[in-house]
Protein backbone atom coordinates (compact mmCIF):
# COMPACT_ATOMS: atom_id res chain seq x y z
CA UNK A 1 0.00 0.00 0.00
CA UNK A 2 1.40 3.42 -0.92
CA UNK A 3 1.71 6.05 1.84
CA UNK A 4 -1.27 8.06 0.55
CA UNK A 5 -3.37 4.93 0.27
CA UNK A 6 -2.34 3.94 3.75
CA UNK A 7 -3.55 7.20 5.28
CA UNK A 8 -6.77 7.03 3.29
CA UNK A 9 -7.43 3.42 4.34
CA UNK A 10 -6.69 4.33 7.96
CA UNK A 11 -9.10 7.27 7.80
CA UNK A 12 -11.81 5.09 6.21
CA UNK A 13 -11.19 2.46 8.87
CA UNK A 14 -11.52 4.97 11.71
CA UNK A 15 -14.76 6.34 10.21
CA UNK A 16 -16.14 2.82 9.71
CA UNK A 17 -15.27 1.74 13.24
CA UNK A 18 -16.74 4.89 14.80
CA UNK A 19 -19.96 4.30 12.83
CA UNK A 20 -20.21 0.58 13.57
CA UNK A 21 -19.33 0.94 17.25
CA UNK A 22 -22.22 3.39 17.65
CA UNK A 23 -24.49 1.14 15.62
CA UNK A 24 -23.78 -1.67 18.10
CA UNK A 25 -25.30 0.49 20.86
CA UNK A 26 -28.71 0.61 19.18
CA UNK A 27 -31.44 -1.14 21.15
CA UNK A 28 -32.88 -2.79 18.05
CA UNK A 29 -29.52 -4.33 17.16
CA UNK A 30 -29.01 -5.36 20.75
CA UNK A 31 -32.32 -7.23 20.80
CA UNK A 32 -31.91 -8.79 17.35
CA UNK A 33 -28.25 -9.73 17.40
CA UNK A 34 -26.38 -9.23 20.64
CA UNK A 35 -28.93 -10.63 23.09
CA UNK A 36 -29.16 -14.04 21.33
CA UNK A 37 -25.35 -14.13 21.19
CA UNK A 38 -25.08 -13.34 24.92
CA UNK A 39 -27.59 -16.07 25.79
CA UNK A 40 -25.90 -18.60 23.46
CA UNK A 41 -22.46 -17.94 24.93
CA UNK A 42 -23.81 -18.30 28.49
CA UNK A 43 -25.58 -21.57 27.58
CA UNK A 44 -22.54 -22.99 25.75
CA UNK A 45 -20.20 -21.98 28.57
CA UNK A 46 -22.53 -23.64 31.07
CA UNK A 47 -22.48 -26.89 29.06
CA UNK A 48 -18.69 -26.95 28.75
CA UNK A 49 -18.05 -26.00 32.39
CA UNK A 50 -20.50 -28.68 33.55
CA UNK A 51 -18.13 -31.27 32.07
CA UNK A 52 -15.38 -30.36 34.54
CA UNK A 53 -17.19 -28.65 37.39
CA UNK A 54 -20.10 -29.61 39.61
CA UNK A 55 -22.85 -27.18 40.47
CA UNK A 56 -22.96 -25.17 37.24
CA UNK A 57 -26.15 -23.23 36.52
CA UNK A 58 -27.05 -20.85 33.73
CA UNK A 59 -29.73 -18.25 34.38
CA UNK A 60 -30.30 -16.11 31.31
CA UNK A 61 -26.95 -14.57 30.53
CA UNK A 62 -25.43 -15.41 33.90
CA UNK A 63 -23.20 -18.42 34.45
CA UNK A 64 -23.01 -19.63 38.06
CA UNK A 65 -20.22 -21.82 39.36
CA UNK A 66 -21.39 -22.52 42.88
CA UNK A 67 -22.35 -19.16 44.40
CA UNK A 68 -20.21 -17.00 42.11
CA UNK A 69 -21.62 -15.74 38.85
CA UNK A 70 -20.27 -14.18 35.68
CA UNK A 71 -22.66 -12.13 33.59
CA UNK A 72 -22.14 -12.16 29.84
CA UNK A 73 -22.52 -8.54 28.74
CA UNK A 74 -22.04 -7.13 25.24
CA UNK A 75 -18.31 -6.60 25.62
CA UNK A 76 -18.02 -10.30 26.56
CA UNK A 77 -19.51 -11.52 23.28
CA UNK A 78 -16.53 -10.82 21.04
CA UNK A 79 -18.93 -9.51 18.37
CA UNK A 80 -17.50 -6.00 18.66
CA UNK A 81 -13.93 -7.28 18.36
CA UNK A 82 -14.94 -9.38 15.34
CA UNK A 83 -16.61 -6.38 13.72
CA UNK A 84 -13.53 -4.20 14.15
CA UNK A 85 -11.11 -6.84 12.88
CA UNK A 86 -13.39 -7.65 9.94
CA UNK A 87 -13.67 -3.92 9.16
CA UNK A 88 -9.89 -3.75 8.83
CA UNK A 89 -10.06 -6.52 6.23
CA UNK A 90 -12.91 -4.82 4.42
CA UNK A 91 -11.00 -1.57 3.96
CA UNK A 92 -7.73 -3.24 2.98
CA UNK A 93 -7.11 -3.34 -0.80
CA UNK A 94 -7.77 -6.97 -1.72
CA UNK A 95 -10.06 -8.94 -4.05
CA UNK A 96 -13.56 -9.16 -2.59
CA UNK A 97 -13.33 -12.95 -2.34
CA UNK A 98 -10.21 -12.63 -0.16
CA UNK A 99 -11.89 -9.94 1.94
CA UNK A 100 -14.94 -12.20 2.43
CA UNK A 101 -12.71 -15.08 3.51
CA UNK A 102 -10.93 -12.72 5.88
CA UNK A 103 -14.19 -11.55 7.42
CA UNK A 104 -15.33 -15.15 8.01
CA UNK A 105 -11.94 -16.10 9.46
CA UNK A 106 -11.89 -12.98 11.64
CA UNK A 107 -15.24 -13.79 13.23
CA UNK A 108 -14.44 -17.49 13.62
CA UNK A 109 -11.09 -16.82 15.32
CA UNK A 110 -12.30 -13.99 17.54
CA UNK A 111 -15.45 -15.80 18.66
CA UNK A 112 -13.49 -18.99 19.41
CA UNK A 113 -10.81 -17.17 21.41
CA UNK A 114 -13.45 -15.12 23.17
CA UNK A 115 -15.27 -18.29 24.20
CA UNK A 116 -12.06 -19.57 25.79
CA UNK A 117 -11.83 -16.21 27.55
CA UNK A 118 -15.34 -16.60 28.96
CA UNK A 119 -14.58 -20.14 30.18
CA UNK A 120 -11.37 -19.12 31.94
CA UNK A 121 -13.00 -16.08 33.52
CA UNK A 122 -15.96 -18.12 34.82
CA UNK A 123 -13.54 -20.63 36.30
CA UNK A 124 -11.24 -17.98 37.82
CA UNK A 125 -14.15 -16.02 39.25
CA UNK A 126 -15.14 -19.08 41.24
CA UNK A 127 -11.65 -20.21 42.22
CA UNK A 128 -9.56 -17.04 42.54
CA UNK A 129 -11.30 -13.65 42.41
CA UNK A 130 -7.96 -11.79 42.67
CA UNK A 131 -6.58 -13.64 39.66
CA UNK A 132 -9.91 -13.02 37.89
CA UNK A 133 -9.39 -9.27 38.14
CA UNK A 134 -5.83 -9.46 36.88
CA UNK A 135 -6.61 -11.80 34.00
CA UNK A 136 -9.82 -9.95 33.06
CA UNK A 137 -8.30 -6.48 33.03
CA UNK A 138 -4.73 -7.08 31.85
CA UNK A 139 -4.17 -10.52 30.36
CA UNK A 140 -7.15 -11.22 28.11
CA UNK A 141 -7.45 -7.76 26.49
CA UNK A 142 -3.77 -7.91 25.53
CA UNK A 143 -4.08 -11.52 24.37
CA UNK A 144 -7.09 -10.74 22.20
CA UNK A 145 -5.26 -7.72 20.83
CA UNK A 146 -2.35 -10.01 19.96
CA UNK A 147 -4.69 -12.50 18.27
CA UNK A 148 -6.30 -9.72 16.20
CA UNK A 149 -2.90 -8.37 15.26
CA UNK A 150 -1.62 -11.79 14.22
CA UNK A 151 -4.77 -12.58 12.25
CA UNK A 152 -4.61 -9.27 10.40
CA UNK A 153 -0.89 -9.47 9.64
CA UNK A 154 -1.10 -13.05 8.40
CA UNK A 155 -4.18 -12.20 6.30
CA UNK A 156 -2.41 -9.18 4.78
CA UNK A 157 0.34 -11.56 3.71
CA UNK A 158 -2.20 -13.80 1.99
CA UNK A 159 -3.52 -10.89 -0.09
CA UNK A 160 -2.19 -11.30 -3.64
CA UNK A 161 0.75 -8.89 -4.05
CA UNK A 162 -0.56 -7.04 -7.12
CA UNK A 163 -3.63 -6.00 -5.14
CA UNK A 164 -1.81 -4.88 -2.02
Amino acid at each position, binding site marked *: *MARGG*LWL*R*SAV*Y*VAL*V*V*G*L*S*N*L*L*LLDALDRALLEPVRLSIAAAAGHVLALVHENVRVVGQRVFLGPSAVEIV*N*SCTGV*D*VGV*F*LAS*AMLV*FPAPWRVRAQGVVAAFAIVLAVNFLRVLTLCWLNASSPHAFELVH*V*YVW*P*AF*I*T*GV*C*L*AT*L*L*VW*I*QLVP*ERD*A
Partner: protein
Amino acid sequence: MPRFALLLLARFALVYGLLVWLCASVPVYAFLEGAATRAAAAGLRQGAMQSRSLVLERRGDAFVYVYALRVGTVSRSLEQPYHKHAFVLVLFLALVLATPGLARRELATAFFAGGALVFLLCLAMLMSDVAVWERAALAEAGVAETVGPWPVPLGFIAGLHRTAAAGLLPVIVWAFFAGSRAGSRARRPSATSRA
Protein backbone atom coordinates in the same frame (compact mmCIF):
# COMPACT_ATOMS: atom_id res chain seq x y z
CA MET B 1 5.52 -11.91 7.09
CA PRO B 2 4.61 -14.80 9.41
CA ARG B 3 8.13 -14.45 10.80
CA PHE B 4 7.55 -10.69 11.14
CA ALA B 5 4.16 -11.31 12.81
CA LEU B 6 5.63 -13.89 15.18
CA LEU B 7 8.53 -11.64 16.10
CA LEU B 8 6.19 -8.71 16.63
CA LEU B 9 3.86 -10.75 18.84
CA ALA B 10 6.67 -12.21 20.93
CA ARG B 11 8.18 -8.77 21.45
CA PHE B 12 4.73 -7.29 22.14
CA ALA B 13 4.08 -9.88 24.87
CA LEU B 14 7.44 -9.07 26.46
CA VAL B 15 7.16 -5.27 26.25
CA TYR B 16 3.51 -5.27 27.34
CA GLY B 17 4.38 -7.47 30.33
CA LEU B 18 7.17 -5.08 31.29
CA LEU B 19 4.91 -2.04 30.94
CA VAL B 20 2.16 -3.65 33.02
CA TRP B 21 4.72 -4.48 35.69
CA LEU B 22 5.95 -0.87 35.55
CA CYS B 23 2.36 0.41 35.83
CA ALA B 24 1.80 -1.85 38.84
CA SER B 25 5.06 -0.71 40.49
CA VAL B 26 4.70 3.03 39.98
CA PRO B 27 1.39 4.90 39.59
CA VAL B 28 1.65 5.41 35.83
CA TYR B 29 -2.09 5.09 35.23
CA ALA B 30 -2.89 7.60 37.97
CA PHE B 31 -0.33 10.01 36.46
CA LEU B 32 -1.78 9.67 32.96
CA GLU B 33 -5.36 9.81 34.19
CA GLY B 34 -4.49 12.88 36.28
CA ALA B 35 -3.05 14.56 33.17
CA ALA B 36 -6.15 13.65 31.16
CA THR B 37 -8.39 14.94 33.96
CA ARG B 38 -6.54 18.28 34.09
CA ALA B 39 -6.70 18.61 30.29
CA ALA B 40 -10.41 17.80 30.32
CA ALA B 41 -11.05 20.22 33.20
CA ALA B 42 -9.28 23.04 31.35
CA GLY B 43 -11.86 23.02 28.59
CA LEU B 44 -15.01 22.75 30.71
CA ARG B 45 -17.79 25.15 29.78
CA GLN B 46 -18.11 28.01 32.30
CA GLY B 47 -20.44 30.99 32.38
CA ALA B 48 -22.64 33.23 34.47
CA MET B 49 -25.30 30.55 34.90
CA GLN B 50 -23.05 27.53 34.88
CA SER B 51 -19.81 26.34 36.43
CA ARG B 52 -18.04 23.03 36.37
CA SER B 53 -14.90 21.49 37.84
CA LEU B 54 -13.30 18.09 37.47
CA VAL B 55 -10.50 16.63 39.57
CA LEU B 56 -9.03 13.23 40.26
CA GLU B 57 -8.77 12.73 44.01
CA ARG B 58 -6.97 10.08 45.99
CA ARG B 59 -9.10 8.21 48.56
CA GLY B 60 -6.86 5.82 50.47
CA ASP B 61 -5.51 3.34 47.96
CA ALA B 62 -8.00 4.28 45.27
CA PHE B 63 -8.82 7.29 43.11
CA VAL B 64 -12.16 8.91 42.33
CA TYR B 65 -13.24 11.58 39.86
CA VAL B 66 -15.00 14.45 41.57
CA TYR B 67 -17.19 16.42 39.18
CA ALA B 68 -18.79 19.55 40.62
CA LEU B 69 -21.55 20.96 38.49
CA ARG B 70 -23.80 24.01 38.72
CA VAL B 71 -26.24 24.70 35.91
CA GLY B 72 -28.88 27.31 36.70
CA THR B 73 -30.40 26.34 40.02
CA VAL B 74 -29.08 22.77 39.88
CA SER B 75 -25.92 22.11 41.84
CA ARG B 76 -24.35 18.67 42.21
CA SER B 77 -21.05 17.14 43.29
CA LEU B 78 -20.62 13.75 41.66
CA GLU B 79 -18.08 11.14 42.64
CA GLN B 80 -17.32 8.44 40.13
CA PRO B 81 -14.93 5.49 40.27
CA TYR B 82 -11.56 5.80 38.58
CA HIS B 83 -11.22 4.17 35.17
CA LYS B 84 -7.91 3.31 33.51
CA HIS B 85 -8.54 4.90 30.12
CA ALA B 86 -4.77 5.03 29.64
CA PHE B 87 -4.74 1.25 29.27
CA VAL B 88 -5.30 1.90 25.56
CA LEU B 89 -2.18 4.08 25.49
CA VAL B 90 -0.08 1.44 27.26
CA LEU B 91 -1.26 -1.18 24.76
CA PHE B 92 -0.37 1.07 21.82
CA LEU B 93 3.04 2.08 23.16
CA ALA B 94 3.88 -1.57 23.85
CA LEU B 95 3.04 -2.36 20.23
CA VAL B 96 5.15 0.50 18.87
CA LEU B 97 8.12 -0.45 21.05
CA ALA B 98 7.72 -4.08 20.00
CA THR B 99 7.63 -3.44 16.25
CA PRO B 100 10.85 -4.75 14.76
CA GLY B 101 12.94 -2.83 12.26
CA LEU B 102 11.90 0.74 13.07
CA ALA B 103 14.58 3.39 12.67
CA ARG B 104 15.11 5.68 15.69
CA ARG B 105 13.31 8.56 14.02
CA GLU B 106 10.33 6.37 13.05
CA LEU B 107 10.19 4.96 16.56
CA ALA B 108 10.32 8.43 18.13
CA THR B 109 7.60 9.74 15.76
CA ALA B 110 5.32 6.76 16.40
CA PHE B 111 5.95 6.85 20.14
CA PHE B 112 5.38 10.57 20.68
CA ALA B 113 3.03 11.59 17.84
CA GLY B 114 1.11 8.30 17.86
CA GLY B 115 1.12 8.30 21.65
CA ALA B 116 -0.25 11.86 21.67
CA LEU B 117 -3.09 10.86 19.34
CA VAL B 118 -3.94 7.85 21.50
CA PHE B 119 -3.78 10.07 24.60
CA LEU B 120 -6.37 12.31 22.88
CA LEU B 121 -8.52 9.22 22.40
CA CYS B 122 -8.21 8.45 26.14
CA LEU B 123 -9.07 12.08 26.90
CA ALA B 124 -12.13 11.89 24.64
CA MET B 125 -13.28 8.75 26.46
CA LEU B 126 -13.00 10.51 29.83
CA MET B 127 -14.87 13.53 28.45
CA SER B 128 -17.56 11.23 27.10
CA ASP B 129 -17.92 9.68 30.58
CA VAL B 130 -18.27 13.11 32.20
CA ALA B 131 -20.87 14.15 29.63
CA VAL B 132 -22.89 11.04 30.50
CA TRP B 133 -22.64 11.78 34.27
CA GLU B 134 -23.78 15.35 33.71
CA ARG B 135 -26.68 14.37 31.48
CA ALA B 136 -27.85 11.78 34.03
CA ALA B 137 -27.51 14.22 36.96
CA LEU B 138 -29.40 16.97 35.16
CA ALA B 139 -32.09 14.57 33.94
CA GLU B 140 -32.55 13.43 37.53
CA ALA B 141 -32.98 17.09 38.51
CA GLY B 142 -35.59 17.54 35.79
CA VAL B 143 -33.37 19.36 33.29
CA ALA B 144 -33.75 17.56 29.99
CA GLU B 145 -32.05 19.94 27.55
CA THR B 146 -28.37 20.58 28.27
CA VAL B 147 -25.52 22.02 26.23
CA GLY B 148 -23.00 19.57 27.67
CA PRO B 149 -19.77 20.15 29.58
CA TRP B 150 -17.62 20.89 26.50
CA PRO B 151 -18.24 22.87 23.34
CA VAL B 152 -17.26 19.85 21.22
CA PRO B 153 -19.41 16.93 20.05
CA LEU B 154 -18.65 13.76 22.00
CA GLY B 155 -21.52 11.50 20.99
CA PHE B 156 -19.41 9.54 18.50
CA ILE B 157 -17.00 8.50 21.26
CA ALA B 158 -19.71 6.59 23.14
CA GLY B 159 -19.58 3.65 20.76
CA LEU B 160 -15.80 3.48 20.83
CA HIS B 161 -15.76 3.62 24.60
CA ARG B 162 -18.46 1.07 25.28
CA THR B 163 -17.09 -1.52 22.85
CA ALA B 164 -13.62 -2.91 22.31
CA ALA B 165 -13.00 -0.40 19.51
CA ALA B 166 -11.10 2.13 21.55
CA GLY B 167 -8.43 -0.43 22.35
CA LEU B 168 -8.34 -2.03 18.92
CA LEU B 169 -8.53 1.12 16.82
CA PRO B 170 -4.91 2.32 17.32
CA VAL B 171 -3.63 -1.25 17.22
CA ILE B 172 -5.23 -2.01 13.86
CA VAL B 173 -4.23 1.31 12.34
CA TRP B 174 -0.68 0.57 13.50
CA ALA B 175 -0.96 -2.93 11.98
CA PHE B 176 -1.74 -1.33 8.60
CA PHE B 177 1.50 0.63 8.84
CA ALA B 178 3.59 -2.22 10.23
CA GLY B 179 2.11 -4.71 7.73
CA SER B 180 2.70 -2.45 4.77
CA ARG B 181 6.22 -1.68 5.95
CA ALA B 182 7.05 -5.36 6.41
CA GLY B 183 5.54 -6.12 2.99
CA SER B 184 7.56 -3.46 1.21
CA ARG B 185 10.76 -4.59 2.98
CA ALA B 186 10.06 -8.18 1.89
CA ARG B 187 9.52 -7.07 -1.73
CA ARG B 188 12.62 -4.84 -1.79
CA PRO B 189 15.43 -6.76 -3.53
CA SER B 190 18.43 -7.26 -1.30
CA ALA B 191 22.03 -6.53 -2.30
CA THR B 192 22.68 -10.24 -2.62
CA SER B 193 19.77 -10.90 -4.93
CA ARG B 194 20.76 -7.98 -7.12
CA ALA B 195 24.32 -9.21 -7.54
